C-alpha cells in the first residue's frame, strides 16, 4: 500500500466501523476508550504507521521513569467487525498522516463509518449529568444518529488565535473522501484532566456499544466511576475548602481566583495517591 504503513497481519473484516482515539487528551479519554475496546473485544494489532515523518524522533520522552515512544497502531476485532486506531497525535505532516489512516480504513478495511473520541475541558462539577456532543460530517449521518442522546445543535467557530483540533481536521479529511464520520466529544471536569474520568469514557463507550452493536457490558466502568466518586467524597469530607469549591460548581457559581487551581491540584494529587 505505502512504505509508511506496515502490516503485520491481514484480519478478515467485512465492512467494519473504525474508532479513533489519541493518546494525549484530557482525562486520557481517547487512550482509555481505545484500550477498553481492544481489551474487552480481544483486538489484535495488525497495522502501524511508521513514525519517522510525523514525530520529531530527536530523543525519547520519559514519564515517571517509563519510556514513551510515538505509537500509531490499528487493532482488529473481527468478531464485532470493528477496527480501533490508537495513536500519539502527529507533530507535523498532519494531512499526510490523516490520509494514511484513511487509506488503511477505506482501501484495506472498507470501513462503513468512523468515530473519533475526544474530551473537552468543562467547568462543571463531576456530579452533574454528562452531556455528550457530536460533530458530524454530513446531514445524512446526523439524521441516522438522531435516535442517540447526542447534543445535536451545536454551533462553533474557532476563536481568533485558536486552532481547530486534530479531530476536526480528521473529520474534514474523511468527509473529503466521502466516508461517514463523526467526532464524539465528552466533557471532562477541569479538575479531572490530569487523572482518569471513568464517567466520561463510560459515556463514550455506551454510545459506541449501542451504535456499533458491540454488546459491551460496562458494569466494571460503573464500579470504577462509583469508586472514583467515593474517593472525591472522601476528599470533600476531609477538606471543607475543597467541598466548598465543588459545591460552588454544583450550584453553577463562579469560582474565586486560585480556587480552580487548588481544586485541580488537590483532587489530582489525591486520586493519584489513591491509585488512579
Amino acid at each position, binding site marked *: 500500500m505505502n512504505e509508511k504503513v506496515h502490516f503485520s497481519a491481514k484480519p478478515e473484516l467485512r465492512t467494519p466501523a473504525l474508532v479513533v482515539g489519541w493518546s494525549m487528551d484530557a482525562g486520557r479519554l481517547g487512550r482509555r476508550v481505545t484500550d477498553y475496546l481492544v481489551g474487552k473485544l480481544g483486538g489484535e494489532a495488525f497495522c502501524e504507521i511508521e513514525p519517522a515523518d510525523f514525530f520529531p524522533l530527536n530523543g525519547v520522552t520519559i514519564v515517571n521513569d517509563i519510556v514513551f515512544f510515538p505509537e500509531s497502531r490499528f487493532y482488529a476485532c473481527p468478531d464485532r467487525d470493528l477496527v480501533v486506531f490508537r495513536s500519539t497525535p502527529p507533530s507535523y505532516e498532519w494531512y499526510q498522516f490523516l490520509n494514511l489512516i484513511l487509506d488503511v480504513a477505506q482501501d484495506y478495511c472498507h470501513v462503513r463509518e468512523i468515530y473519533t473520541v475526544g474530551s473537552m475541558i468543562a467547568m462543571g462539577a463531576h456530579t452533574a449529568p454528562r452531556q455528550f456532543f457530536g460533530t458530524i460530517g454530513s446531514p445524512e449521518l446526523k439524521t441516522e444518529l438522531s435516535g442517540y442522546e447526542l447534543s445535536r445543535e451545536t454551533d462553533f467557530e474557532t476563536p481568533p488565535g485558536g*486552532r481547530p483540533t486534530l479531530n476536526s*481536521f480528521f473529520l474534514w479529511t474523511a468527509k473529503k473522501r466521502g466516508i461517514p464520520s463523526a467526532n464524539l466529544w465528552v466533557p471532562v471536569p477541569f479538575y479531572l484532566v490530569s487523572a482518569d474520568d471513568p464517567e466520561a469514557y463510560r459515556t463514550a463507550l455506551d454510545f459506541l456499544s449501542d451504535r456499533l452493536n458491540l454488546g459491551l457490558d460496562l458494569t466494571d466502568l460503573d464500579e470504577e466511576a462509583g469508586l472514583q466518586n467515593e474517593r472525591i467524597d472522601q476528599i470533600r469530607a476531609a477538606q471543607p475548602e475543597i467541598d466548598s469549591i465543588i459545591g460552588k460548581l454544583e450550584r453553577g457559581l463562579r469560582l474565586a481566583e486560585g480556587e480552580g487551581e487548588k481544586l485541580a491540584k488537590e483532587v489530582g494529587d489525591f486520586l493519584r495517591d489513591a491509585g488512579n
Partner: protein
Amino acid sequence: MPCHLFKIRICLEDNVTGWAVGIILHSEPELNQPHMIVGWPGIGNIGVITVDNLRQQIEAEELGEIEPWDYFYPSKVVIRASVLHSLEFPTSKFYYKRLANRDLLLFVGEEQPSGRGRMYAEGGKAYEMANQVLDVAEKFGCSRIYTSGAAVALTHHSWKPRVWAVATDSGLLAEMKGYANTLLMSEVEGRGDVGNITGLNGLLIGVAKKRGLEGVCLMGEIPDYLSRVPFPYPKASQSVLEMLAAILGVSIDMAALDDMTAQMEDVITNVFRQFPNEVRDRIDQRRQEAQPGMITEEDEKWLKENIDDFFRQEEGDKGQ
C-alpha cells in the same frame, strides 16, 4: 467560472505519498512578459504587507491558489447545528494585473509552511512550495521574481528605512542600485561579503536562480531592537513599496500604509519609553551616526541581554 486543477512537476514526482498538492487556477489570461512579486510573513511582516498593499492599490485580480492542506494545519473550523460546515487554512494566492509596460503577477502567502513550530519554512516543504510558485510564474511567461523581507539593522525607528537589495546576477544589482533609497547588502557598514536570507522570501530567489529565472530580494530596514517583537513594521514596507512603484512605473497611494505606520509609531513610542534609560540612551545615540549599520556579534549579545529580556519580563507581567 471553470477551475483548472493541474498537477505540477513536483507533485507528479511525489509518488511516495500519493497525495499530489495542486494549484487551482480560476482563469488563464494571456499576460505580457510579466514579472512576479512575492511576499510571505517574516520579521515585521515587511514583505507580506508590501505585496498585499500593492495588490490592493493596483486592484489586482485573483488568479488562483495553492491547495493548502498538505502544507498547513487548519486555522479555523466552522460547525453549524453540529455538522461540520467548513475548515479554513492559511491561504497562498496568486493575483495578476495588466499594466502599461509589462503585466504583473503577485503571490501572497498568509503563512510560511514551516510545519514544525518555526516561523520560517525550510527543507522539503519550503522547496516544494517555492517550485509551485515558480511553476505558475513560468506558466505565464514570467522571467523575473521579486521577493521582499526584512533587513535587521542598527537603525532607529525615527529614520526612514532604506531598502537593501540582493539579486541573482550583477546586472540586476546594477539596475536595483539605480533606485532611490536603495543599497546593496554588501554596502552596509560593518557587513561582510556573506549573508543569509532566512525562509521562503530568500529561498524563492535561490530556486529561481536554479531554474534560470532572474530573482531580486528587496529588504526594508527594521531596527534590531524591534526585530524580535511580534509587531508589524509598515514603515519599512513603505520604503519597499516606493521602490517597487518606481520599478513598475505605477503610482501608489500610500494613505493606508501612512495610517498603519502612524498607528505603529504610537505603539513603538510607548514601548520605547518603557525601555530602561541606559538602553534608550544607547539606541538614541544612533541618531548622531551618519547612517545605519549592520549588527555585529557584540550588538546581538547586547540585544539579547537588554531587549529580549525586557520583552520576556513584559510577557510575564501580563500573565499575573
